[in-house]
Each structure stands twice: as structure tokens, then as C-alpha cells.
């Protein structure tokens, strides 16, 4: 068994799986912080019930995101030790920063948030969720800086003795243009994911007219998030495409399966051809759009795969520098299609629910709930595109994937961990989905229960109570596992 192929499958499976949960965590944390701030500001119990409802789903999702995240950090050393040796001087720094700055922040303040309802003032409690949100966003920033370095290595010089890159400018790694636009793109996708889930789950309840006071505001907040998120995804994706054309022309040519250098390049919306994409039998094309996306002008020249392959052979020596074209072609289209589809969902939703309207037709609501699947597919294909599109490199232009794999780890060992992780992740996926669905369907807690969990003196209309018997030694915990 080939350890390289197995290690690649493992990285793909564990990473895509991990990134199913991460965007929801990032997006929902921000939306929950907004709702909890509304509770602090207005002391309207509806917002408290709302944040508690989303909190349950958030925690189920967060647990599995954390659990699968540990594997992410360890498998660089386990399966990709040569890669770790090669880039350690550069790549380890953002990873360590992620731990010190982000992981401590999100996990510690989430612990305070979960268990602190009756220990902290509402203002401080809401601040905890803002800090959790800041932690999740900071985490995304550092790990994307590490990934952007792999896409476009900067801030280094190659050590003549070891042949390895040596970090010379941490600022370049943390703030290169590709990193800034990638961060914007991913953050927008995370907001979009959280917002679509909020919209879809709210739609489930509103279709049945259950807890309308909780889910109408949630629906509107979700829809606004969907529109802002999808617009930001589209705009940042457009800028990213242009940066990418500069730094990784092969990836963008592969995204379009553009074999020959072309000016006025058209973008195919749909193409049916031979499986490897080299010959096209039927296509729907928008003239000039690819040139526009890549260069900013409809007449711009876009380099083709064959020409770039020749340039790379001159630069890097003989070899095949083409990524898997059908994968890049189709994942690119799926990603873009989903972005635009969700913009349509958001705009239609805002229109249909304008001025306190709630549509009667069941299929409208069902469609909104089904849309929950879309951002998860979009996030996955987006990463598959950007990582597969970088092949055959792990660090573009410096180190290939086949050089990166651990030399001492056997195929049997990688297969063992592949089977164990895949099996475990599959079981956890089933449990996780069932728990999420069950807890979503159970609906929000009652106003009385929600208020009972916060400190007595913080309850609206109950300001005189102060500390009382309910806060003595034997008072039930406001939250307990």
C-alpha cells in the first residue's frame, strides 16, 4: 500500500470533516454574540430564549469541532514529517500563535459562557461570547496565514546549507495580500454558513408557526447574514481569483480547464466533454467573463494549462505540474454556483418576510430548510478546489506532496489510522446530526426557564430580590452536563 496516497486521503477526509463544523462555529458565535447583546440592551426575554436555543446547537457542534481539530495539528507530524521538517521554521509559528492567542481564548471563555449564566452579570456573560467569537476568528486567521504560505510562500530565504526555507519576515507571512483576501473570503463563508443554518432552522419552526416570537427575529437576522455573507463571499472571491491568477496561474487555468492561452477568454457555466476536460462537446459560455475574473478586463489574456506546464518545466525541471483538472473544474463551479444560489435565497427570503409577513406556502419554508445543506457543500468544495488546485505542491514551487510524506511511517500504519479516523468520524457524524436535529426540534425553553437561569437581580421586573435562597449553596446549577 502506498503511504502517500493513503496519507493524502486521510488529510482530505479529516480536513473536510473538520471544516464541516468550524464555519458553523465561527458564524454562529458571531450571530449569538449579537443576539445576546440585544438581550443585555433590551432585557427582552425573547432574546435570552433565542440565544439559549442557538447555544445548544452551538455546543454540540463546537465539541466535535474541537475534537477533530486536535487531529489536524498532530497529523502534520504523524503523516507529513518530511513536510514538517522542511517548513517547520515558518509553518510552526502561526500554528503556535493560533494555540496561544485563539484556542485558549475560545475554549476558556466558552467554559465561562456555558457554566456562567448564574455567576456572571449579563453584560460580562455576553462579553464572554464576544471573546469566543474573537477567538474563533483569530484561529481562522492564523491557520489561513499558514495555508496562504503554502499557496504562495513569502517572507523567507532558502538556506543554502539545508535547502529549507528560513523565515526572514513574519509580517510578510501574516499579512501578505493573498492571506488578507483569503481570510475575508473564508470569514464571509463562515458568516454565511451560520446565517443559513439560523435561517433554515427558523424556517422549520415558522412553517409550523411555533415560537414565532423567537424565530421571526432569528429568521430576519439569519437572512440579513445570508445576504451580507453571500455578497462578501462573491466580492472577496472575485478579488481572490485575481490574486490567484498572479501567484498560481495554473490553479486558475485548471479551474476553467483552459488549455491554451486566450484573450477575451469566456467562462463556461456548464461544460460537457471528455472526462479529463481536454475536449469539449457542449458548453454554455459567457464571453469575456473569465478574462474579466482573472485580469479585471474582458480583453485580458489568460494563460492556458499547456503553456504554464511548459514554463514550469523550464523553471522546476521535468515533471507534470498539472492538478487534477476535472476536480478543479467542477469544484470551482459548485463553489461559485452555491454562492450565487445563497444570495438568491437571502434576497428572496428578505422580500417574502418584509414588513412582518410570513409566507403561507409550505414549500417556501421547506426550501429554506433544505438550503442548510448548501453552505456545507460550498465550504467543502472550496477547500477541495484550493488544495487540489495547488498539487503537485505542498509549498508551491518549493516542496512537492510526494516529498512531504513521513518516510518511516508504513502503509499499514497510515491505513490503520485512516480506517480508525474515518470510522470514528462516520459514527460521530451520525450521533452529531441526530443530536442536533433532536435538540433543534425540541425548540426554545420557556421564558420562565430562561429567566430562572440568570441571577435573580438581573431578571427584568425582579430587581429588588438581590441574593436569596435560590442563590445559596444548594441552588441548582444554571447549567450542568
Amino acid at each position, binding site marked *: 500500500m502506498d503511504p502517500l496516497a493513503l496519507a493524502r486521503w486521510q488529510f482530505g477526509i479529516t480536513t473536510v470533516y473538520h471544516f464541516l463544523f468550524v464555519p458553523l462555529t465561527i458564524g454562529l458565535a458571531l450571530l449569538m454574540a449579537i443576539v445576546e447583546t440585544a438581550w443585555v440592551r433590551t432585557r427582552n426575554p425573547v432574546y435570552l430564549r433565542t440565544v439559549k436555543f442557538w447555544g445548544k446547537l452551538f455546543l454540540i457542534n463546537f465539541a466535535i469541532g474541537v475534537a477533530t481539530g486536535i487531529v489536524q495539528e498532530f497529523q502534520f*507530524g504523524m503523516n507529513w514529517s518530511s513536510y514538517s521538517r522542511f517548513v*517547520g521554521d515558518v509553518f510552526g509559528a502561526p500554528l503556535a500563535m493560533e494555540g496561544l492567542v485563539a484556542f*485558549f481564548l475560545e475554549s476558556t471563555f466558552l467554559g465561562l459562557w456555558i457554566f*456562567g449564566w448564574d455567576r456572571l452579570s449579563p453584560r460580562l456573560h455576553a462579553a464572554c461570547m464576544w471573546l469566543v467569537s474573537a477567538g474563533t476568528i483569530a484561529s481562522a486567521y492564523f491557520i489561513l496565514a499558514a495555508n496562504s504560505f503554502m499557496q504562495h510562500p513569502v517572507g523567507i530565504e532558502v538556506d543554502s546549507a539545508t535547502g529549507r526555507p528560513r523565515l526572514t519576515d513574519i509580517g510578510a507571512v501574516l499579512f501578505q495580500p493573498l492571506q488578507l483576501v483569503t481570510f475575508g473570503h473564508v470569514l464571509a463563508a463562515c458568516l454565511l454558513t451560520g446565517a443559513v443554518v439560523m435561517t433554515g432552522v427558523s424556517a422549520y419552526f415558522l412553517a409550523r408557526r411555533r415560537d414565532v416570537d423567537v424565530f421571526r427575529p432569528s429568521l430576519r437576522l439569519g437572512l440579513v447574514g445570508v445576504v451580507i455573507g453571500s455578497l462578501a463571499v462573491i466580492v472577496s472571491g472575485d478579488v481572490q481569483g485575481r490574486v490567484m491568477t498572479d501567484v498560481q496561474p495554473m490553479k486558475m487555468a485548471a479551474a476553467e480547464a483552459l488549455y491554451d492561452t486566450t484573450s477575451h477568454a469566456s467562462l463556461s457555466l456548464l461544460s460537457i466533454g471528455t472526462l479529463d476536460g481536454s475536449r469539449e462537446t457542449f458548453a454554455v459560455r459567457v464571453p469575456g467573463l473569465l478574462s474579466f475574473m482573472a485580469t479585471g478586463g474582458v480583453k485580458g489574456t489568460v494563460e492556458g494549462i499547456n503553456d504554464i506546464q511548459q514554463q514550469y518545466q523550464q523553471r522546476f525541471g521535468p515533471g507534470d505540474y498539472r492538478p487534477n483538472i476535472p476536480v478543479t473544474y467542477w469544484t470551482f463551479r459548485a463553489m461559485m454556483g452555491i454562492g450565487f444560489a445563497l444570495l438568491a435565497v437571502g434576497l428572496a427570503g428578505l422580500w417574502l418576510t418584509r414588513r412582518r409577513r410570513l409566507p403561507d406556502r409550505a414549500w417556501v419554508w421547506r426550501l429554506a430548510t433544505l438550503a442548510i445543506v448548501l453552505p456545507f457543500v460550498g465550504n467543502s468544495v472550496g477547500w477541495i478546489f484550493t488544495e487540489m488546485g495547488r498539487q503537485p505542491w505542498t509549498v508551491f514551487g518549493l516542496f512537492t506532496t510526494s516529498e512531504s510524506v513521513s518516510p518511516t*511511517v508504513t502503509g499499514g500504519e497510515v491505513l490503520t489510522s485512516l480506517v480508525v479516523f474515518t470510522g470514528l468520524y462516520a459514527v460521530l457524524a451520525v450521533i452529531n446530526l441526530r443530536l442536533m436535529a433532536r435538540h433543534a426540534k425540541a425548540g426554545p425553553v420557556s421564558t420562565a426557564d430562561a429567566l430562572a437561569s440568570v441571577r435573580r437581580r438581573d431578571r427584568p421586573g425582579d430587581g429588588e430580590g438581590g441574593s436569596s435562597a435560590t442563590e445559596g449553596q*444548594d441552588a441548582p*446549577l444554571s447549567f450542568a452536563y
Partner: protein
Amino acid sequence: MLLNDLWFGLIAVLWIGYFVLDGFDFGVGGLLGVLGRDERGRRVLINTIGPVWDGNEVWLLVAGGATFAAFPQWYATLFSGFYLPLLAILVCLIIRAVAFEYRGKGHSDTWRRNWDWAIVACSVGPALLWGVAFGSIVRGVPLSSDHEFAGGVLDLLSPFAVLVGVTTLLLFLTHGAVFVALKTTEQVRERANRLAVRLGVSALVAMAGMVLWQSQLRFDPISMAAGTVAVLGLGLGLVAARRGRDGWAFAASAVATGLLVASWFTALYPAVLPSSTDPAGTLTIHNAASSPYTLTVMTWVAAIMTPVVLAYQGWTYWVFRRRISTRQIPPSQPAGQAEAQLDDRAATGAGPASA
């Protein structure tokens, strides 16, 4: 070079932080069935670590990340060489993490019992395996001259490594029992205190043997001193536990855990992963390290962030400083309410309990 020493020390501190903090989480998880005899007792135990276990586990992630940043050669050899034990640890940490969260979210007794078993197994497993791993590091493993691991799984299971594993397992169980005593009331607290003393004696014996053996393998006066004080500290902790001085007992078991880890690192210094075969394969703080520039950058980040992290983690422990009693455990689930009422009825011997 000073930077390399500094980072060796910092990584030692991160591992000390991880074992002192997640050590009692492992102990509490491992003793779930023994100390928490009924559903409420078990929930009290889980809730003593509920607000903090996740933050404690981050110490491991940061230790791993810092090793990658400061000593990439160490990270690469260690993680690829210790492949299967690490796989087992990762699987345990994954299951343990979701178990805490999912356990209370199902409705049946079978559901909860299965997760209880998962928590026990996935706490005992890493408590043992981390010790085995560090025992192998201290003893040394076969490394080729290009620093690649040149052994098999059996090279990681030397008698010394197994003794270190048994030591950490017993120590973490003791540490966990002492923590439970500190955080609970009445019967749970008394049971925990009694168990801490009994477990602590065997931990003490294992640890003393380990410290002696370690001094034979790699004699270093500072390491020997740290190990000896660790053993003495644990002994004093047991006296405190016997007298019901929970705070002192916990402080002592924390110091013992920290010093034990310190004794590993001081025994290793200046090596980070000694080779048991080709001496040229030994990884040290010099040949495993990142460039001075990277170490300088990371020093600034660590100098700024570490005090902040310590401050807010410390504050968390302050916020949740109160003991938890079985009476404070709320009925969690809609379906769990029926069960909780049954519990009440059984406890009071009376008719239907009113909420």
C-alpha cells in the same frame, strides 16, 4: 544559545501546565464509576471539570504547536515515530471531548452508561500512554543518523517506559481524586478523600521507583532533586488529604505532577530526543531548533500572551471556585426529569416529588 534554552524551558512549562491541569481531568474521568456511584454522583464529578477541561486540553495543543515552531525536527521525528500510541491518544481525546458534551443529551440509561464507559476508558488510556511516551523519550529511542525513527512499536514499550506510564496513571488518578475532594461536598468528598490516600500510596511507590530508575538511566542532579521533591510533595499531600485539608492536598499533588515532568525535562537536557542506537541521531535543542529569527518572534508572542492566558484561566477557576453538591445538579433533559424524580423519590422514600 540562550533562545534555544529558553524555548526548551518554555515547552517544559507547557507540558507541566498540560499534565497538572488535564492530569486531574483524566483522574476525574477515570474515577467516574468508582467515585460517582449513582447518576447524580457521576454528574457531580463531570461538572467539577465541566467549565475547565477544554481550556486545560488547549495546553496540549499549544505544547504541540510550540514544539513545531521552536523544534520542528523534534516534532517531526517524535510524531511520526510514536505513530500508533499517538493515534490511540488522539482517538481517546476525541471520544472524551464529545462524551462530556453528548452524555447528558440522550434520554436513556444505556446511552449514559455507554458514554460513562467511554469517559473512563478514554481518561485512563491517555493517562497511561502519555507516561509511556515520555518514558520512551527520556530513555531514548532508536534514531538513524538523519534523525528518523528507526524502531518499532515495541521500542516504545520498554519496562522503564511502562513504569513511567503506570506512575502517571496512578498519579493522575490520585490528583483527580484530590481535585474531586476539593470541589465537592459530603459523601462524594469523603469517598474521594479516602480513595486519594489509598491510590496515592501506590502512586508514591511507583513514582519513587521511577525516579530512582531514571537516575540510573540519565543521572542529573537537578532532575534527581526535582524527582525527590515530587515524591516528598506527594507524601505531604497524602497527609493533608487524610486530615481533610483539601486545598493543601491539591496543591501538593499539583506540585508533585509538575516536578515529575520537570525531572523528565532536566534529565533530557540538552537533548530533546536521545538516540538509543546511533549517537549521531540524537536530537538536541540545537540541531532540532528553528532559526534564531523564528525563536525571537515566538518569544515575543509568548511573552505577551502567556501572562494574559494565565490571568484569564486563573479567573475562570476563581469564578467556579465553589464546591458542587449532588443537590445542585438540575434535572437536565425533558425525559430525564422523570428519572430525576424517581431518584428523589428513592432518596426521600416519599411519594411523588414536587418540582
